């Protein structure tokens, strides 16, 4: 299982790097989403893949019985997913707003904050 997950993580990272190298910011954002999932998978795999039961304590007992899965990385992954979701949703909203105002998502043309000195001088 671990090696399969590792391969999957590698695939996700490769795809995300490919997307992030694009000039279009929307593609970059999709790359970020893939990278975020790859990072979550890394944490998940770090807790070791075991065929255990959920880490729940049965009624009346004080310890779970049998082999249980490591609950900590799952909690971490859940937190990371939630945070990642919030950040990516914000980024998507920002991207949309930027497209509406700047009329482009091409990073070569997004020079409002750092004007290209030579070009703007001529264009002024």
């Amino acid at each position, binding site marked *: 299982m671990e090696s399969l997950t590792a391969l999957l993580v590698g695939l996700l990272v490769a795809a995300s790097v490919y997307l992030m190298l694009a000039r279009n910011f929307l593609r970059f954002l999709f790359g*970020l989403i893939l990278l*975020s999932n790859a990072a979550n998978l890394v944490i998940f795999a770090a807790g070791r893949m075991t065929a255990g039961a959920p880490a729940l304590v049965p009624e009346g007992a004080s310890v779970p019985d049998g082999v249980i899965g490591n609950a900590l990385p799952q909690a971490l992954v859940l937190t990371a997913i939630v945070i990642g979701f919030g950040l990516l949703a914000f980024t998507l909203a920002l991207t949309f707003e*930027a497209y509406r105002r700047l009329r482009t998502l091409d990073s070569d043309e997004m020079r409002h*904050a750092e004007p290209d000195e030579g070009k703007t001088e001529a264009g002024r």
Partner: protein
Amino acid sequence: MSWLLALPIAIPFVTAVIVYLLRNRALGRWISLAGSLASLAASAALMVAVLRDGVVAAQMGGWPAPFGISLVADYLSAVMVVITAITGLATAVYALGEIEERLERLGYHALFQVLIAGVTGAFLTGDLFNLYVWFEVMLIASFGLLVLGGSKEQLDAGIKYVALNLVSTLVFLSGIGLLYGVTGTLNLADLHGAVAAVEDQALITVIAMMFMVGFGVKAAVFPLFFWLPASYHTPSFAVSAVFAGLLTKVGVYALMRMFTLVFVGDVGFTHEILIWVSALTMLTGVLGAAAQTDFRKILSFHIISQIGYMTLGLALYTPLALMGGVFYLVHHIIVKANLFLVAGVAQKLAGGTDLERIGGLYKSSPLLAALFVVPAFSLAGFPPLSGFWAKFLIVKASIELGEWLIAFVALFVGLLTIFSMTKIWGMAFWKPHPEGIEPTPDRVPARIRVPMMLPIAGLAAMTVLIGFFPEPFVQFAETAAVQLLEPAAYVEAVLGLREARP
């Protein structure tokens, strides 16, 4: 103990909730100010406790370490929390003058308080994953503040800032995952022992490099700094002062914490890389600044070059160097935030930040000119201001190690800093205004002018104070450095709690 450590984080959060609900009323901004004052009081109380006990630690939720989340304050954390509260208070006062009602309605004060809470949380946490969470709290608030108002420049800057910071966050997160996979713990104090016990130290070095890249982006070190000069000159001045003062320093703090407490197994490799990264950071920052003609862009590039000195303090890894690094960290937050605040007043008076289109500030506003000279000369390292002692310690540490080239770079960068500062001085203050305007202070109503000038004067006074009486601050930094290099007390304070509980 639990209260002392949690209050500096909880107060800004509670303030944020209240001021958001009051965002349409003038009362909101006063509550925000009161919250900043309360944060300062709480962090001062924490500082007193740390000065008394050395290291203060507490467990959230009563779960014993290393399972629960620890909050820890040693000398470094405590001073960072205090300086965060001071910067927060200064910008909260400044915002009374600068921030318009339109931005207040959009929730400026709430975002600002959440940002302060995130920064404070990052300084106080003793748990790696919790550090990630505080980084995110800080990031989401800074995203909001950066694009608040929504001008074209801000949106453009926001995209770049968000993109690069998210990548660094994900690298950091993957590093956390791998480190947990190798050691099975995320508590920083516990990691100190657990990492040393790992057989395959090469694996640890790889993970250390991931952390170095992740935090390096946040700290804006050499090849990873591009988001900073692209974004810091676009938001309102109060926001860019807080960003300039605090955000990159959280990255430096995280580097200092991780590379003194956890990743110390292969100092010859990791810290050697940091030395060269620091030297290149100093050089590129200061050379980038030399090419700029905008007040805030020059200052932005100088943040980068100054970050180099701080990481150099960590990289040299001797008590003297770390002491210099800690001292530099504190000095730089005060000075840099102040310079951005001065830029805000200059913009209000002279009508811009483009140095070629403003001028005449010295003749018409001598007070502002005097208040600019103090932090500017301190930044460049003129004796007897605070920057001189900070640079002196770092350069002395590198000479003691025989790193002559690094010492030369540090001095050379100081020289170029003077060049940039005199450029601002000459163009914004000395030369007459190109449009013949007299930028006298009464161009701005006192209602706005006074709250903007007060924090500038206060921070400048602190710079002078540290400069003339460096002794207690240097001693403090020395203790902080010793604690960093010998983390036994830190580990004991956190893990000792295990035995203390029945």
